[in-house]
């Protein structure tokens, strides 16, 4: 069984948290086990995913892009079409329902790009729960539209001014808030990271992406794809699309991390490619750290990938060789962002643009009868400001 009872995926995962949180995590593990086996819970989740979030999302063949690029065909799993604009809503809705079932009245969440924050705020509004979202001050600045959306949806947004003022620090603050309010507050963690049972739970709620994509690609082509490609920050969209393909050995799984300004520059967020094993935010996995075990600052054009750790199941998939991990640098992600906008009329999130950039390069090396499924995990409206400023600098 992966993960085991202690939340280990091989040697990765576990529960490295202050004692205060242990009872809360035990309660959560028990509640989640119940919900997973409860047909009423699952039915409510699926109905809301269908009628409120807009599932299933289509699998779309990017024909103009393929004509331009040549090589293998690229199919986009359109998570960008979901309510609130990204895959994050799958998990926020699932955990929101669980929190409600557990009798919690308040949610606390962290957010990087703001997509999970918006999803958490929307799910809270839907379910009548209070919502507090911690967001690094740097991210509040670069993802301003999402801050407005969260507030409109009734959430309280708290800017975090410590450390690097990005996702890592937002998670620290959200955990501290949870430690202090553990009696009445549910921690809605947005990625496949953190202490057990979060990596398991987030993967399960996101696995709908891969289940749909697998069925859809079989219906369209009659065979499985050769590759599945997804961007990896904490890794929730990637594990969501990878997981249902894990036993299909002929399907190669590729995770794309933020190469930032290049691995040599040290300004990147490539935990799996360039990190080493350590413990951050409650789990053992690959982490960007210095030789003294201090967590290192990261850089990415995309706030959602700007994180020095990664979910433990990705650590396991890397360790076993079942998935491969690579990097795409800022400027190539930006090129892919522009290209997809112009050729397909789809503005992708900068996070997802990393996966698209890699898929384009990959497809050009493959045969025409091969297929690459890319998780287009979110839409890029939130990124207009940063893209505009990058383009101005470039001119």
């Amino acid at each position: 069984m992966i993960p085991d009872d202690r939340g280990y995926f091989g040697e990765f995962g576990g529960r490295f948290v202050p004692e205060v949180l242990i009872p809360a995590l035990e309660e959560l593990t028990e509640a989640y086990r119940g919900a997973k086996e409860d047909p009423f819970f699952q039915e409510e989740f699926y109905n809301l995913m269908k009628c409120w979030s807009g599932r299933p999302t289509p699998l779309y063949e990017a024909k103009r892009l393929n004509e331009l690029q040549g090589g293998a065909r690229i199919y986009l799993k359109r998570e960008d079409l979901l309510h609130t604009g990204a895959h994050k809503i799958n998990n926020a809705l699932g955990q929101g329902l669980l929190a409600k079932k557990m009798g919690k009245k308040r949610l606390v969440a962290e957010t990087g790009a703001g997509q999970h924050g918006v999803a958490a705020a929307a799910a809270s509004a839907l379910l009548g729960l209070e919502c507090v979202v911690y967001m690094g001050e740097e991210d509040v600045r670069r993802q301003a539209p999402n801050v407005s959306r969260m507030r409109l949806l009734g959430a309280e947004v708290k800017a975090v001014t410590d450390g690097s003022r990005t996702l890592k620090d937002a998670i620290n603050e959200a955990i501290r808030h949870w430690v202090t309010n553990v009696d009445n507050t549910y921690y809605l963690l947005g990625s496949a990271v953190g202490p057990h049972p979060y990596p398991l739970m987030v993967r399960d709620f996101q696995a709908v992406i891969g289940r749909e994509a697998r069925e859809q690609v079989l219906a369209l082509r009659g065979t499985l794809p050769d590759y599945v490609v997804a961007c990896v920050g904490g890794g929730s969209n990637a594990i969501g699309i990878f997981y249902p393909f894990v036993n299909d050995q002929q399907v190669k799984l590729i995770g794309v991390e933020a190469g930032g300004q290049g691995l040599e520059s040290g300004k990147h967020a490539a935990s799996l490619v360039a990190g080493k094993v350590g413990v951050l935010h409650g789990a053992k996995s690959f982490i960007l750290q210095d030789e003294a075990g201090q967590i290192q600052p990261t850089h990415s054009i995309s706030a959602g990938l700007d994180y020095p750790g990664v979910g433990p199941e990705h650590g396991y998939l890397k360790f076993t060789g079942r998935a491969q991990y690579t990097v795409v640098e800022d400027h190539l992600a930006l090129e892919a962002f522009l290209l997809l906008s112009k050729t397909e009329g789809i503005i992708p999130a900068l996070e997802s643009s990393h996966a698209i950039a890699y898929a384009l390069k990959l497809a050009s090396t493959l045969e025409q009868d091969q297929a690459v499924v890319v998780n287009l995990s979110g839409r890029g409206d939130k990124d207009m400001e940063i893209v505009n400023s990058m383009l101005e600098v470039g001119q």
Partner: protein
Amino acid sequence: MMRIASVFTEKKHAALIAFITVGYPTLEATLEAVPLLEKCGVDMVELGIPFSDPLADGITIQQASFEALQNGITPAACLDAARFIRKKSNMPLIFMTYYNPVLSYGQELFCADSSRAGIDGLIIPDLPLEEAGALEESTLNHNLDLIYLLAPNSSEARIREVADRSRGFIYLISVTGVTGIRENAPLGLNEFTSKVKKHTDKPLCMGFGISTPEQAAHVSKSVDGVIVGSSIVHIMGTQKQWKPPLSHFIRSLKKAIQTAK
């Protein structure tokens, strides 16, 4: 005789345990503070090895950790500091840090070097029982006490296991929260301590949020040791001439504990 245990034998009142962040505001300050703390009546010192992401700590120790790291403090520098302090003092010294720096250093090597530097025990707030097997073995190999924490919401089963495995003392977290200065004394204190005392005779020391002599006096009636951190770190970090106010504060804590009824 283990140094930590010796503090709790034949004592008339609760021990006073001080926490400081190594390298805050400077490394010299740390080296000067420990003898001063001892002189003013502190029985045991926790030396905090700074970590970049101290998620069990409130704002005071977060900022101290951040500045200490800016000052270039590493686990190796903390070991040097411990060695220096140990030459002049026989008081028990404990390292408090997070798990990743220990893991990165190498658990066995960290314990060996800590022991050689004169450290007596370790407190790792993000390492609960379930994950601590390997470190526990290394601490046993090197004659260090691994001190576990309990919270007011810990289950009876966990209390029993911590009571069984914690060495030196058991660290009781006074509130469900992070470290830091608080105005009020912890609630439900007696309920928590008597729940733990049902399962153990080991010394119980309480920390988190104990920041005034009144709070220390109140807490000291129910436990074997009182741990004060953020207030000390705050005095050292905010007052240029920190020694007189620190001496005064520690003496007032000591007096409050000695005269608590």
